[in-house]
């Protein structure tokens, strides 16, 4: 609410997106500050995932746009979003199923490394050094999300919870400034959710800003510094959890008034 803050990490300005007659996003404006855990909640079909997709370049918004880290984001170019420092996970997990867990994370290093075909064919010392660094970093990240013992297994053979963790490790491998998690706790039991919560807090403490979509209101309110609520594609409120929780419009949206 205060105005004399440093420039935000992400600023969405009047982002609009519609699919035929469905207005999935109606002029959504919000700001995410450096170092916070920012929650994005709302009933099913509210437009949360659509917001992610617009931000990460999978969809081109029909109106408005994003400023990230001081410069505008190019629409329709997911690879640029990743290069700029936005990483994401998917609501319906999207791993590289027939690659090992380790390889999945190694792919995440793609955007921060440069070896090309010629280097690989000639197996130059620069390529070998980079390859070793990629591998080491990927192993470290598997340790970080605590699935190092599954490194050699195909991603599709991992348990559901481990797949969620692997997706986070792959996203972290791109060295994001902003990590966007789309319902990471979906389908998890209480213990798994608690472990996930610790993981997310750890990632934030290590310096990555987090945008979290989640249906588990308890998790969101306990974890997030600020929360935005979407309903029918429109932003209802953006504030600290204590305020959001008491807001009449939010209560109505969730109770289906």
């Amino acid at each position, binding site marked *: 609410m205060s105005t004399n803050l440093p420039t935000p990490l992400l600023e969405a300005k009047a982002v609009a997106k519609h699919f035929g007659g469905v207005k999935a996003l109606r002029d959504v404006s919000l700001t995410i500050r450096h170092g916070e855990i920012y929650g994005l909640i709302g009933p099913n079909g509210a437009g949360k995932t659509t917001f992610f997709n617009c931000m990460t370049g999978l969809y081109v918004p029909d109106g408005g746009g994003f400023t990230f880290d001081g410069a505008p984001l190019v629409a329709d170019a*997911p*690879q640029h979003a990743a290069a700029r420092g936005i990483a994401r996970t998917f609501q319906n997990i999207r*791993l590289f199923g027939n690659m090992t867990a380790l390889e999945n994370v190694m*792919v995440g290093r*793609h955007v921060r490394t440069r070896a090309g075909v010629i280097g690989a064919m000639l197996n130059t010392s620069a390529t070998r050094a980079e390859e070793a660094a990629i591998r080491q970093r990927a192993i470290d990240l598997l340790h970080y999300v605590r699935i190092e013992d599954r490194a050699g297994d195909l991603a599709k053979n991992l348990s559901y919870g481990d797949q969620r963790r692997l997706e986070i490790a792959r996203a972290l*491998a791109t060295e994001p400034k902003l990590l966007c998690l789309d319902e990471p706790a979906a389908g998890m039991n209480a213990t798994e959710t608690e472990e996930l919560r610790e993981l997310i807090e750890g990632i934030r403490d290590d310096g990555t800003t987090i945008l979290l979509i989640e249906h588990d209101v308890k998790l969101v309110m306990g974890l997030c510094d600020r929360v935005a609520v979407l309903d029918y594609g429109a932003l209802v409120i953006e504030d600290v959890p204590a305020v959001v929780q008491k807001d009449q419009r939010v209560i109505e949206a969730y109770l289906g008034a």
Partner: protein
Amino acid sequence: MSKWLNPRSAFGITLIAVALLGLPFVAAMGGQAWVRILDFAILYVFLALGLNIVVGYAGLLDLGYIAFYAVGAYTWALLASPHFGLHLPIWAILPIGAALACLAGVLLGSPTLKLRGDYLAIVTLGFGEIVRIFMNNLNAPVNITNGPQGITLIDPVAFGDFKFSGNTQLFGLTLSGPMKYYYLLVALAILVVIINLRLQNSRIGRAWQAIREDEIAAKAVGINTRNIKLLAFAMGASFGGIAGGVFAAMQGFVSPESFSLMESIMILAMVVLGGMGHIPGVILGAVLLSILPEALRYGVGPIQMALFGKMMVDPESLRMLVFGLALVLVMRFKPAGLWPSPERKRELSEKRTEGKA
């Protein structure tokens, strides 16, 4: 890397090397025709490994691969034959052929990048046919390809005075033309195996596999899917171009007939039947599918004569029958190919134990 140093692999490699060196002499006992069959088997290994980059790694279903082979073959034919009176050396022609094929790959790749699966297959199929028809018709108004008659009297591969056609005496052994080509092809095939291996475990190779597995997720981690797919097309096409050049030199003759859709399908079948994306599997697929039909061709006739005293079935049609049957059986019982990668195999066996538990 230390894998290479352990004595068992060293022994295995020595064994394979001796077998590869001795093979043409064994084949030659059955006549030079068998050495030529071997030559083609190795050439198909080369082609299949090139296609493996596109289909196996990047997961792009390419049914027009033979077009790049054609580009390479015609490049050699035009630059080293009396047709234009040009006789460029191998170190000039092969790179030109590879570069032209690479260009053709990019030409095919760029408009088709948004297509996947079946749609891509149809467009590439069309592309393969277009190239063949071009070769067929580029004899008027200016005669470039000599049309359906093809180009004859193509120069053989030669390094200085050493020609790969005709017999050579070496250490008291007589090496025939096909035998010399065999060694050249084996050397090239080993090179392409090494390149395939290195690409597979590289940043680009992983990006290809990521696109194959999930293109949206690949984009989300920052892979420029358009460029990386184009690269796969270009790499695969270059290998096709090199193979085509050697083919033209070895045959001494090219005509559009050699570059039919059936050839594209054959090479694709080698990759799929052997084990997509798994180098030993692809090699096995290429060797089996190139040698078995020939063995049938030479074997079936005499056997029928011996058993029935007359020809019951035309060996040529039996060949296609057996080929089709083999494909159906493999796809039914070994859907991942005859020799899939260990990961895929482990996954299958895991499923089996899960089923029992």
